[in-house]
């Protein structure tokens, strides 16, 4: 008992610290789930649209992404009363991911991060047990997961989409909580193993990625056994609103308890500040490279560059793998149809002709398929470019982050000029941005290798045409940092606007002018590149705009005060 002395007080304290962060997470998760569920109601007015959706979901590539399909053995048996089930099939994995991310951050924040900062040392010098902090954090996570699960279930019951059952709503929601809690326990373990908070959370996320991959493989190949290895696979195995199995939840909970027990045993025995894996001895001298501003900027950005390279490769490959099935998607899924055929009159006419004259299929099917693939790849590129913008913004803005932490003074107190430091970050951001785009292209190429629907040259050129878009976003960011660092978050508003108009523009049938007002909308698309119909003018104009923005931003930065 002395091991957890002070548990009640410290739990109250965690509650106090978490009241905002955890509340926002809770609200977002519940709201997201509820909004999508409500949208699902409208999505399937009749049995036909329902069956089309199920057909899409049954494709191996789709199962790899969202998880197994279950329910009536024949698609024709799906009816509008199955909305809740189809919703669970499509959404549960994403809800579990959100919950897992919340839990990883939560536990890491209260355990290894606090320990690294010396806060836990203060607590442990009081009459508090060795396990007080860990147990309080874990109990809080447990309570929070239950809270979220119950509220999610109640919200599901409240909006009551067709086919909702009490058992289904609770099984679905508790699968979210159970997988989340398991990852809370996994993070508690990585927090014991690694000496710093970054490694602890990075490894928890790496495990999440691996487990996602394992279950994707299991669901795609049908080798169910791999699903039992992955907590995500296990969580999806509840088959909510159908079989409503409770066993997977019990297994997940027991696994969590075992991991928590191991973590606590380690925690009770180890020295404060140590991990099971001792920190590597650092270099005695800085390498020649590190001693330059560029070297420093690289060292501080390396981690995120590598992480994004991997992400983009994976993302490209995932999308690429789906491209082969494109015809099926377009046929069965209204949303895809809108996305790929919408606005392309030539393709629409071709498809119509094919539908009316099945005997022409031989001759034109391939052409139609290629066209659809091209349109889809063009869309993927937009997403890739938008995603690549995130690290480009954070890396080009790193100088401001460093400034806020008071680490920039120390640099500028030495003979380093402001533009040299700033431009070092910009160089990494831009070269990084190009690299991320190319990785996306390579991923797509790898994914389409079997179907042969795209050529490497076209893919690479298309990825590079988005560099001016990234440059403009960088330019806006630089200008904000130089002129008005207080409102620098505005860059995310620009980003959000671009994302929404570009991503949802076609789906929601927004006026074409809206996406055209973003740096992404005016660039030659993949389809233009394939048809060699490249409008070089927009590239030149965007590059010029970005140059003006960047130069003015850096000049402003040279003249303003450095915050301390």
């Amino acid at each position, binding site marked *: 008992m002395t091991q957890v002395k002070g548990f009640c007080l410290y739990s109250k*304290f965690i509650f106090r610290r978490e009241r905002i962060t955890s509340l926002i997470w809770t609200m977002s998760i519940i709201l997201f789930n509820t909004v999508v569920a409500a949208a699902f109601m409208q999505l399937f007015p009749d049995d036909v649209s329902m069956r089309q959706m199920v057909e899409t979901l049954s494709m191996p590539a789709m199962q790899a992404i969202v998880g197994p399909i279950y329910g009536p053995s024949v698609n024709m048996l799906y009816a509008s009363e199955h909305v809740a089930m189809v919703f669970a099939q499509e959404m549960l994995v994403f809800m579990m991911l959100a919950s897992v991310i919340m839990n990883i951050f939560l536990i890491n924040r209260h355990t290894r991060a606090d320990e690294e900062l010396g806060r836990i040392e203060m*607590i442990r010098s009081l009459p508090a047990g060795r396990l007080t902090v860990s147990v309080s954090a874990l109990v809080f996570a447990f309570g929070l997961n239950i809270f979220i699960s119950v509220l999610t279930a109640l919200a599901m019951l409240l909006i009551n989409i067709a086919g909702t059952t009490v058992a289904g709503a609770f099984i679905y929601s508790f699968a979210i909580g159970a997988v989340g809690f398991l990852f809370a326990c996994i993070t508690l373990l990585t927090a014991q193993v690694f000496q710093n908070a970054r490694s602890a959370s990075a490894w928890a996320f790496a495990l999440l990625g691996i487990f996602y991959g394992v279950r994707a493989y299991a669901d795609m190949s049908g080798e169910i056994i791999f699903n039992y290895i992955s907590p995500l696979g296990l969580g999806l195995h509840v088959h909510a609103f159908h079989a409503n199995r409770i066993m997977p939840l019990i297994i997940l909970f027991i696994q969590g308890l075992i991991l928590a027990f191991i973590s606590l045993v380690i925690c009770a025995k180890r020295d404060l500040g*140590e991990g099971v894996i001792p920190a590597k001895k650092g270099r005695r001298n800085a390498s020649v490279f590190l001693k330059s501003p560029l070297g420093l900027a690289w060292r501080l950005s390396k981690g995120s560059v590598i992480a994004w390279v991997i992400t983009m490769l994976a993302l490209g490959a995932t999308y690429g793998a789906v491209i082969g099935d494109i015809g099926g998607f377009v046929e069965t899924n209204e949303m895809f149809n809108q996305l790929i055929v919408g606005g392309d009159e030539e393709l629409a006419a071709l498809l119509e002709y094919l539908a009316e004259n099945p005997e022409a299929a031989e001759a034109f099917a391939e052409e139609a398929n290629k066209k659809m693939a091209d349109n889809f790849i063009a869309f993927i590129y937009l997403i890739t470019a938008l995603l690549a913008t995130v690290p480009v913004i954070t890396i080009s803005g790193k100088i401001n982050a460093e400034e806020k932490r008071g680490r920039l003074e120390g640099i500028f107190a030495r003979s380093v000029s402001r533009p040299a430091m700033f431009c070092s970050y910009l160089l990494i951001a831009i070269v990084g941005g190009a690299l991320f785009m190319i990785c996306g292209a390579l991923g797509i190429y790898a994914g389409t290798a079997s179907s042969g629907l795209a050529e490497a040259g076209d893919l690479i050129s298309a990825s590079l045409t988005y560099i001016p878009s990234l440059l403009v976003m960088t330019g806006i960011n630089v200008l904000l940092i130089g002129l008005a660092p207080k409102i620098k978050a505005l860059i995310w508003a620009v980003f959000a606007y671009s994302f929404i108009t570009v991503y949802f523009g076609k789906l929601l049938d927004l006026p074409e002018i809206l996406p055209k007002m973003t740096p992404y909308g005016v660039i030659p698309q993949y389809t233009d590149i394939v048809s060699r119909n490249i409008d070089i003018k927009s590239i030149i104009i965007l590059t010029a705009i970005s140059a003006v923005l960047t130069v003015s931003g850096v000049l402003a930065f040279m003249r303003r005060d450095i915050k301390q």
Partner: protein
Amino acid sequence: MKVIEIKELVKKFGRFTALDGVNLNLDGGEVLAFMGPNGAGKTTTIRALLGIIRATSGSVEMFGEDAWANAVKLHRRISFVPGDVNLWSNLTGGEVIDLFMAMRKGGKPDRKRREEYIQRFELDPSKKCRTYSKGNRQKVALVSAFASDADLFILDEPTSGLDPLMENIFHDCIREQKKDGKSVLLSSHIMSEVEKLADKIIIIREGKIVESGVMSEILEKFNGRTLEEFFLSKYNKNGGGDKNDAG
């Protein structure tokens, strides 16, 4: 009774020996200055005392009980102030003080003492910790340490962020505690502070104790030399531990 008794304490971090047979005693009602160059092992010794790291060998006792095994029980009687205080950025200083005091007592903290020390250290407890300077964060730790009724104060370079005025107030606080019969282990680099406060001195270098004794005797023994010169001779690799150095 001995308040602190450390015998032949060895602490290894992997292959590196941070403490190599440390002996340290503190009797009730005394102020013991714990000195030594950076990286000598002061903080490591203190962390072993707090039972947050485990001795590789040797024994570490407070109030006659093992510091690791009985950590929770012993911590009721001690107050600790680290040299580098890190607090929760979105909580106020007052909230953190309350947490520390509540966790010590388990009951209601002594509001009067709390207010008294907040006044003395001129701390604004309504500000978020993120806005505090290093000195102000230190004050939060000092207020919660002094406002609680401890028998032993373990202070690891507690004045490293304070201005001279606050340093003086800190010295007053230490003297008052000593008058009340409390004991203090004070790790410090500041000669004047040590000279003013300490009854005894112990010096560590590279994980070994190289000198210990009563303050007045040492001053007498090194008659004619300043305390600072004496320390420098002990800190220095070549001069340290060399008794002839006493001259």
